């Protein structure tokens, strides 16, 4: 029982970057912008999030806000290049991925340099919810977590309500399904794409900042380790829906925690094979499901208002 509770607790803790990056991908995708720069944006988020916290003497909130702001700038660039300039979404996304990756290390090197011992920041504190955290078992798993765990759950819930029971949520879905129809109904396609892409990228920046603030207390090169790419996979088999993405993130987090635990305890299987597990599991799950997934019809395509055409 003890190990099951610990496991569940760790899964909730590990869930956060997947949920944030996955929902961010979903949000932009619902408006038709397919962001493939997650990995780069998360890396920048991890780097500036760490630096913001470190240089302010351990103020994690400042780090998070900085990570979101820089992430938002990447989103703005993606939106401008694709929505306004009609550049190819994949090509632009890959370019931003490259720049994010480069910038993350560069900023860290410029601010910190090469040190023998890594500079450390405090990690995110537990924030037990009064009353609720006393519930046996469940309280430990759900209500004795850091603020971003609660944030990730609430965000998913809010996005679900927004998408499926609000007028603007429906307008947003229409933009990704049929921008021409949405446009003729008076929905501002470009503005919707800007807003969702920027917000989505802010979430990705925050997802990156979570890593040094919870896992390592420091920044290391390439520390996102594919979580950005996995969040794309997550979004696909979460059917571009907030609630299913949340469930998918539970699966990703569980696999990651499992891989980590087996690696530490060792059960006779070489740890390298365990480390392959999250990536192999992702591909295995996609095999039977991918064709049946609901994808926004105009995902990855740009819309030209003057010509009422897709590019």
């Amino acid at each position, binding site marked *: 029982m003890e190990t099951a509770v610990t496991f569940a607790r760790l899964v909730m803790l590990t869930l956060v970057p997947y949920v944030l990056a996955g929902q961010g991908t979903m949000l932009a995708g619902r408006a038709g912008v397919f962001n*493939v720069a997650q990995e780069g944006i998360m890396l920048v988020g991890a780097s500036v999030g760490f630096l913001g916290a470190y240089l302010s003497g351990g103020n994690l909130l400042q780090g998070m806000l900085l990570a979101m702001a820089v992430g938002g700038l990447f989103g703005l660039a993606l939106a401008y*290049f694709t929505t306004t*300039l*009609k*550049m190819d979404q*994949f*090509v*632009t996304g*890959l*370019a931003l991925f*490259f*720049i994010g*990756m*480069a*910038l993350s*290390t*560069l900023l860290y*090197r*410029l601010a910190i340099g090469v040190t023998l011992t890594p500079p450390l920041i405090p990690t995110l504190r537990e924030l037990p919810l009064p009353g609720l955290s006393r519930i046996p078992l469940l309280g430990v798993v759900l209500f004795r977590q850091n603020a971003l765990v609660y944030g990730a759950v609430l965000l998913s819930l809010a996005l679900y309500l927004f998408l499926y029971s609000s007028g603007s949520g429906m307008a947003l879905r229409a933009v990704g399904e049929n921008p021409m129809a949405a446009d003729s109904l008076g929905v501002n396609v470009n503005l919707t794409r800007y807003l969702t892409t920027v917000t989505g990228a802010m979430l990705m920046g925050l997802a990156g900042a979570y890593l040094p603030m919870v896992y390592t207390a420091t920044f290391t090169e390439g520390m996102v*380790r*594919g979580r950005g*790419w*996995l969040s*794309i*996979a997550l979004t*696909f088999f979460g059917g571009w829906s907030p609630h299913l993405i949340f469930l998918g993130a539970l699966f990703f987090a569980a696999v990651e925690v499992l891989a980590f635990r087996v690696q530490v305890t060792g059960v006779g299987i*070489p740890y*390298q*094979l365990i*480390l*392959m597990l*999250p*990536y*192999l599991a*992702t*591909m295995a799950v*996609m*095999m*039977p499901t*991918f*064709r049946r997934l609901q994808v926004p019809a105009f995902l990855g395509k740009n819309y030209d208002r003057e010509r009422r055409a897709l590019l």
Partner: protein
Amino acid sequence: MRAHRSPLAVVGGVVPYVVSVGVAFAAAGIFLAVMGFDVPRAYGTILLTSFRTANGFVQTLLKFVPLLLLAMAFTVPLAAWKFNIGGEGQLIAGAIGAAAVGIALAALPRAALLPALLLAGVVGGALWAGVPAWLLYRFGINEILTTVLMNFVSFSLLDYVTTEVWPDPAAGHPTSVSIGAGGHLPLLVSSPPLHAGLLLALGVAAATYVYVNHTAAGYELRAVGANPRAALLHGIAVRRLFLLSLVLGGALAGLAGAVEVAGVHHRLIEGLQSNYLLLSILIGLIAKGNVLAVPFVAFAIAVLDVGARAMQRTMLIPGEVVFVVEGLILVFVLLSDVVRRR
């Protein structure tokens, strides 16, 4: 692509590059100057290191070889508008395949061992790319995702092979035992050592160019990339071509891995993929998928990379500055297309 280009059109194609490079360097230069670095000296080091000494030039060529092959591995599928982000994993798979042959058959004479080793690299890379290619063919799974996921699998595989299967206990870093001497690529120049992989890579790049731009099969590839629906209606087996383009890309990346093993390391070393993948994507995108432009861009990027390392050593300016310059060049090159379209 276009067979008959007027000289004026070629010049017109080069101008945006020159402007992009200039603007990118200027932007990064202002940034560095604000940070208090000696910009002229830094840029002098970046741009001239490769040409000042024979050693620097050979360094650049040694970097150019894997970059060229990996950039081709990205560009060939790009002709069919498929994105191969898995070059790193395919390079590692090729390196492992080559090393497996080089270690297991170490006693063979060079005439047999070297070709077998290179072939094993090609096959390893093709098989590694074959997984995402098959997933795309059979289940329609987006290749951007699966090629990149295979990279992460390959890192663990390389670690496993170098620490558990053929470990070299004398090395501090995860490293395999050496391959047989018959598996070493011959040297073109002995001091500083430059292996014959350069000629091999150039030959393969030329063959790839002919395949993509001057054969019927290559024409189909580009037709699919330009408009898959139209290609399908014209009776081209689109899905099979997607599969083929990715596997071909994997074969090229696998060859790069084999050349690194046979020409440079003579063994497997964790991290032998370096940051070639990122750079190769950059090259492919800057070249805008034009196979003929890839070698030139790859050479320029190799020059920048070697120069950046020298700058980091001598001036303590982080070499990543060059990545940012390259990223800016890419953005400006892409933007120049938009400007011309208007």
